[in-house]
C-alpha cells in the first residue's frame, strides 16, 4: 500500500524531463511542421490562452466536474464497499453487478447516460460516478474484510456509537485502502471527465481538445494537456501526499519507549 517507496530520487526528474523537452524541440525544429509545434510554440499558446482567461475557465469547469464526481464516487463506493466487506449476503447480492460494471467500458456508460438523460451536466457527472464506484467499492471491500476483530470487540464492550466506530475504528484502518482508491480514482476520473466533455459538454478541457482536434491545432492540444498534467500533479503534491503523511504518523513511533 505504500506507494512512495518505489519513487526514484528527485534529481532524475530534473534531468530526464528537460532532456525530453530538448529532444522534442530538436525534432520539431528539424521537421518544421505545424503538426509538431516546438515547446516554445506550446508555451506561447499556453500564455495566450491563460491571458484571455479561456484556459482557467475550462480548467475550472473540468476541475469542478472531477471534484463533484470524485466526492460522490468515494462516498457511494466506500459505503457499498464497507457493507459488502461486512455482510456475506450483501456481497453475494452486489458482487455479480460489480463484475458487470467493472468490465463495462467507460464509453458505453457515457453514451447511455447522454442518450437517456440528454446532454446535461447531471448525465455527465453520473456517467463518471458510475464508472468509478465499482473500483472504490472493490478496494474498500478488501479493507473492510481485514478490519481487526479485536478492535471490534473493544468497541462493542465500550459501547462506541455507530459514528464513533466509523470514525475512530474503521476509517483509520481503511485509510490505506481509501488512499489507494483515491489515487486510482483521481487518475481514472480525470480521463473519463475529458471524454465526457468531448462527447457532450460545451466547456472543459475535453471540449477544448475537441475544438483543437477539429482544426488540427496541435499546439493547443499540447498546451491544454500540459496545464492538465500540472493541475493533477499539484493536487498530488498539495493534497494527497500531506494527507498521507499526516495520517500514517502513528505507524512510525519516534522511538520504542522504556
Amino acid at each position, binding site marked *: 500500500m505504500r506507494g512512495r517507496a518505489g519513487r526514484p530520487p528527485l534529481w532524475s526528474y530534473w534531468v530526464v524531463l528537460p532532456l525530453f523537452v530538448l529532444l522534442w524541440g530538436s525534432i520539431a525544429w528539424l521537421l518544421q511542421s505545424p503538426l509538431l509545434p516546438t515547446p516554445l510554440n506550446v508555451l506561447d499558446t499556453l500564455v495566450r490562452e491563460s491571458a484571455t482567461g479561456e484556459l482557467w475557465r475550462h480548467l475550472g469547469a473540468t476541475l469542478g466536474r472531477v471534484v463533484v464526481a470524485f466526492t460522490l464516487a468515494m462516498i457511494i463506493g466506500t459505503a457499498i464497499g464497507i457493507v459488502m466487506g461486512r455482510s456475506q449476503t450483501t456481497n453475494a447480492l452486489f458482487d455479480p453487478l460489480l463484475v458487470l460494471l467493472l468490465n463495462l467500458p467507460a464509453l458505453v456508460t457515457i453514451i447511455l447516460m447522454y442518450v437517456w438523460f440528454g446532454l446535461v451536466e447531471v448525465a455527465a457527472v453520473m456517467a463518471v460516478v458510475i464508472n468509478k464506484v465499482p473500483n472504490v467499492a472493490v478496494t474498500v471491500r478488501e479493507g473492510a474484510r481485514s478490519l481487526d476483530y*479485536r478492535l471490534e*470487540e*473493544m468497541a462493542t*464492550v465500550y459501547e462506541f456509537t455507530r459514528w464513533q466506530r466509523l470514525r*475512530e475504528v474503521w476509517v483509520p484502518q481503511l485509510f490505506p485502502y481509501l488512499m489507494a482508491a483515491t489515487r486510482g480514482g483521481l487518475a481514472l476520473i480525470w480521463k473519463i471527465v475529458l471524454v465526457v466533455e468531448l462527447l457532450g459538454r460545451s466547456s472543459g478541457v475535453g471540449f477544448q481538445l475537441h475544438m483543437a482536434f477539429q482544426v488540427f491545432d496541435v499546439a493547443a492540444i499540447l498546451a491544454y494537456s500540459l496545464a492538465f498534467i500540472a493541475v493533477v500533479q499539484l493536487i498530488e503534491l498539495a493534497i494527497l501526499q500531506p494527507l498521507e503523511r499526516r495520517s500514517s504518523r502513528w505507524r512510525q*513511533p519516534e522511538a*520504542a519507549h*522504556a
Partner: protein
Amino acid sequence: MLELRIAGRDFGQPVLGEVFATIARGDRICLLGPSGIGKTTLLNAIAGLDKSVPDEAVIGRDKLRVGYLFQEHRLLPWRSLDANLKLVGASDQEAKTLLEQVGLSGYGHYLPDQLSLGMARRAALARCLAVKPDLLLLDEPFASLDPVMAGELKALIAGILDSHPDMAMICVTHDGGDAEILANRLWYLDGKPARLQWDDLIAEACLINGLLDKLRSLEPARL
C-alpha cells in the same frame, strides 16, 4: 447483580457446557483452569461479545457498565492515551487522574504502541476504570510480564479493588497465587465441554493450606 444461565457454546465441537452462577457486587472472582479450556470464551460470553450466546443468558448485564482488560491492550493505536480514555467518556481531568493512578502521569500524549507491554496494559486498565465499571473483566492480566512488572500490576489491581468495594471482578489466570492476592471467590473451569467444577468462596484455611496444591489434587473424577 448478574446471573449467568449460559446453555453452552460450540465452535464446531462443544467447548463450553452449561454455566450457571450468580455474581454479586464486591465479588472478586478468579477464574482458573487448564489452558485452552474456554476461560476467555466464558469471559467473552459474560461481556456480551459472543453473538451466539443470547442476551437472556446473562441476566442483568444491560444495567451494568463493564470494563474489559483484554490480553492485548486494544487501545486505538492512532489515538493518544488521553484520547483513548476520553473516547469511553472520561473528562480531561479524569483522564489525567486515571493515568496518574496507573503510574503513567505525563504519558497522556503518547501513542499506545510507543509504550512497553506493561505500560500499555496499565493504560488499558485505566480505560477500564474510565467507564466507572460495575464489573471488571481481566483476561490474564499478568501474562508475558516479567515478575517485577507483574508484581507491580498485581499490587495496582489489588489497590483498585480496595478503593472500589462495590465493583465486581472476574480475573482469568493460570496462577493460584494471583487468586490468593486478588480473589475472595474461586471458579475452576474444566471438563469437556467445560463447566464450573468449583465455585467457592476462598476460605482463609484454604489459602493457608496452599491453593495451588489443592487445585492440582483436584481430579475431575472426584467432583
